[in-house]
């Protein structure tokens, strides 16, 4: 019997090797299913519906028509195996169902059974399977062991995006009554209150006032952090973790210093006090639309001409790649800045224009390395230049710290490894998965700690920051500080 939880500070592994497959290795890991109350709140059935099989197949049929990628991916995989050793969850667990192609096959085998000639007539021959209860359980389990990071896509000769399959799988499951408690609860809260934490406006005012006071005490500047200020030009939308969690809040402080020094009239919004959009993870396009719309509505209500997103990976993907389509355009924005911008783009622009100055010696003694976040690296861009999502944050780092060390090239930029907690998996009940899934990142980090004495791991994603600070100690890397990029910028900025 294997252990279901990993004891604190256990060293899980050191060297990046391809594991021998170990069937069922993670079969006992399953995240909590949504309660009926939460399911109902997000407009879904409270428990598994009676005709779940037919409903699931018909939902799959609908999704196949609505998502060309999904339809093509179902047909074009040749089982070449190129992706099999590319997923951090497979590398960390050895469970074969965590190989990207095997994960897709959970859905593909059912697709073949119901939507292809060969699968209808020769199911055994082509590996087609009926959707039965055990299969349903495998769907739930293994579609919640994928962080939708798209690393596998980088290596797939057909361009197959496993995250599209995972999202479709989760959407189908939620639609027949088995959503994931963690993500659905967050979606319910963001709809109800405006942010994932369920923090109401008075609480938000408190937090921002306290923060302003802290920064003022620290710097001697008179800092005020505006909320719902209709005279502002720019709406700032950060992940709500930035308001209180460590190390996130230090990044927020850095951002505020940048905005203050540049003299920008910005505001936060109580209605859109959350950058995150967990409906991306659950595959629910209607919810994703609604959550994105909230930002657009707030921006229009406040009459701002620019929207700037804080350090949040998947929020950036939604803002950069999807929001335009989801909310129907941005004609209300400044034509010079016609789409939501990333805080790194803004800071970089200010730096280049000489509106802020950075002094790297203020971060003396820190040896930093940069963790590219999946949704930024493989799902969006930055700065309007090719590979900008790699160039811009590194340029900011270079201006802010004396020494940057890159991790190995198969663990950075487009090939970056997920932190292990993305895609709606950042929940306590998946801790074992999260620790094991962080193995490749930990190995890459360990290498630069050994070779160059790296002290800080820098990220621009709230999920990455939370996940890495929680799991690195389990890989004996607790001494490495997980840090927001804008914390270092904030240290370096000349006030």
């Amino acid at each position, binding site marked *: 019997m294997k252990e279901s939880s990993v004891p604190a500070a256990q060293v899980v592994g050191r060297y990046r090797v391809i594991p*021998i*497959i170990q069937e069922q290795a993670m079969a006992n890991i399953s995240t909590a299913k949504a309660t009926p109350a939460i399911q109902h709140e997000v407009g879904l059935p409270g428990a598994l519906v009676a005709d779940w099989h037919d409903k699931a197949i018909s939902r799959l049929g609908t999704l*196949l*028509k*609505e*998502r*060309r*990628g999904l*339809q*093509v*991916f179902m*047909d*074009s995989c*040749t*089982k*070449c*195996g*190129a*992706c*099999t*050793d*590319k997923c951090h969850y497979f590398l960390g667990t050895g469970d*074969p169902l965590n*190989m990207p*192609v*095997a994960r897709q*096959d959970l859905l593909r085998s059912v697709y073949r059974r119901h939507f*292809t000639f*060969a699968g209808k007539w*020769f199911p*055994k*021959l*082509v*590996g087609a399977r009926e959707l039965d209860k055990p299969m349903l359980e495998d769907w739930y389990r293994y579609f919640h062991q994928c962080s939708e990071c*798209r690393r596998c896509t*980088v*290596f*797939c*000769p*057909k*361009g197959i*995006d496993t995250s*599209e399959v995972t999202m479709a799988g989760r959407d189908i499951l939620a639609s027949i009554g088995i959503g994931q408690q963690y993500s659905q609860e967050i979606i319910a809260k963001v709809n109800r209150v405006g942010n994932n934490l369920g923090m109401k406006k008075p609480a938000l005012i408190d937090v921002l006032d306290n923060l302003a006071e802290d920064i003022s005490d620290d710097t001697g500047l008179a800092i005020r952090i505006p909320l719902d200020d209709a005279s502002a030009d720019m709406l700032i939308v950060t992940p709500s973790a930035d308001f209180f969690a460590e190390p996130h809040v230090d990044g927020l402080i850095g951002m505020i210093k940048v905005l203050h020094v540049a003299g920008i009239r910005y505001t936060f919004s109580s209605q859109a006090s959350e950058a995150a959009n967990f409906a991306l993870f659950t595959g629910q*396009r209607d919810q994703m639309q609604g959550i994105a719309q909230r930002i657009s509505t707030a921006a229009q209500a406040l009459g701002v001409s620019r929207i700037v997103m804080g350090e949040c990976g998947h929020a950036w993907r939604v803002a*950069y*790649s999807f929001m335009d*389509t*989801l909310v129907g355009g941005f004609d209300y924005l400044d034509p010079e800045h016609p*789409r939501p911008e990333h805080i790194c783009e803004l800071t970089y622009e200010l730096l280049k224009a000489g509106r802020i100055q950075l002094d790297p010696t203020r971060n003396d003694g820190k040896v930093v390395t940069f963790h590219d976040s999946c949704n930024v690296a*493989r*799902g*969006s*861009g*930055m700065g*309007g230049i*090719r*590979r900008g*999502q*790699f160039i811009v944050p590194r340029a900011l780092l270079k201006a802010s710290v004396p020494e940057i060390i890159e991790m190995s090239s198969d663990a950075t930029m*487009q090939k970056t490894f997920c932190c292990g907690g993305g895609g709606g998996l950042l929940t306590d009940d998946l801790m074992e998965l999260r620790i094991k899934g962080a193995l490749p990142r930990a190995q890459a980090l360990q290498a630069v700690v050994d070779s160059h004495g790296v002290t800080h791991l820098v990220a621009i994603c709230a999920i990455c920051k939370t996940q890495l600070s929680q799991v690195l100690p389990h890989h004996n890397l607790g001494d490495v500080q997980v840090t927001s990029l804008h914390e270092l910028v904030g240290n370096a900025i000349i006030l």
Partner: protein
Amino acid sequence: MFDLALALSYSLALVWLVGGCAYRVGIWLKARNSLPIPLTPAPRTRSGVVMRLCLELFAFRSLARADKTTWLASLLFHYGLLWLAIVHLRFVFTSLPTFLIPFIQYSGWATLCVIVGLSVLLLRRLLVDRVRYVSAPSDYLHLMLLISIAVSGALLKRVWPVNLFEVGEFLRGVFRVSWVPLPDHAGLVVHLLLVLVLLLVFPISKLLHGVGVIVSPTFNQRDRG
């Protein structure tokens, strides 16, 4: 009688092949592209996208990133197959066009590439535990079918020759829908039957993946930011 049946099946199989592929690709294209999902960094221009697709189609770029052995084996197999497909154009013409002569000269090497490439892919499927885990019977059968086509073809060329002009007459008959008898040659019949199976399987299997590369939104969409 058997000749006629085979010729008729070939004619029908060609219709099935073209119709079947068009039907499948039609399903792909009919599906809506609701949200843009290019794998970034993605090209920012249309010509950049064409470049990306060409790299994937002709150099198997992503596969090269993933695993060099599989990449090399796939290149050997696919380019060998392309070469041999060109060689088979000889059966379309009544007299041999000169441009085909170099292709025919080196067809032996091409066959070798195909057989070696396919064998490596088959061995990998059998020996690597991860690939074995995701393989269905059809995955092995596809490879074995292709290997037997290549081997039977090589035998026809080198060991057990057949009158090529008569084969050409037969195949031209298939295209013109005016069927003529086959040369009396059991090896040829085996080769033709195997190819017939390939034609039948092609549109309803993963063998259509080449078109899938072009239609995949992760490859063919631009970065519009």
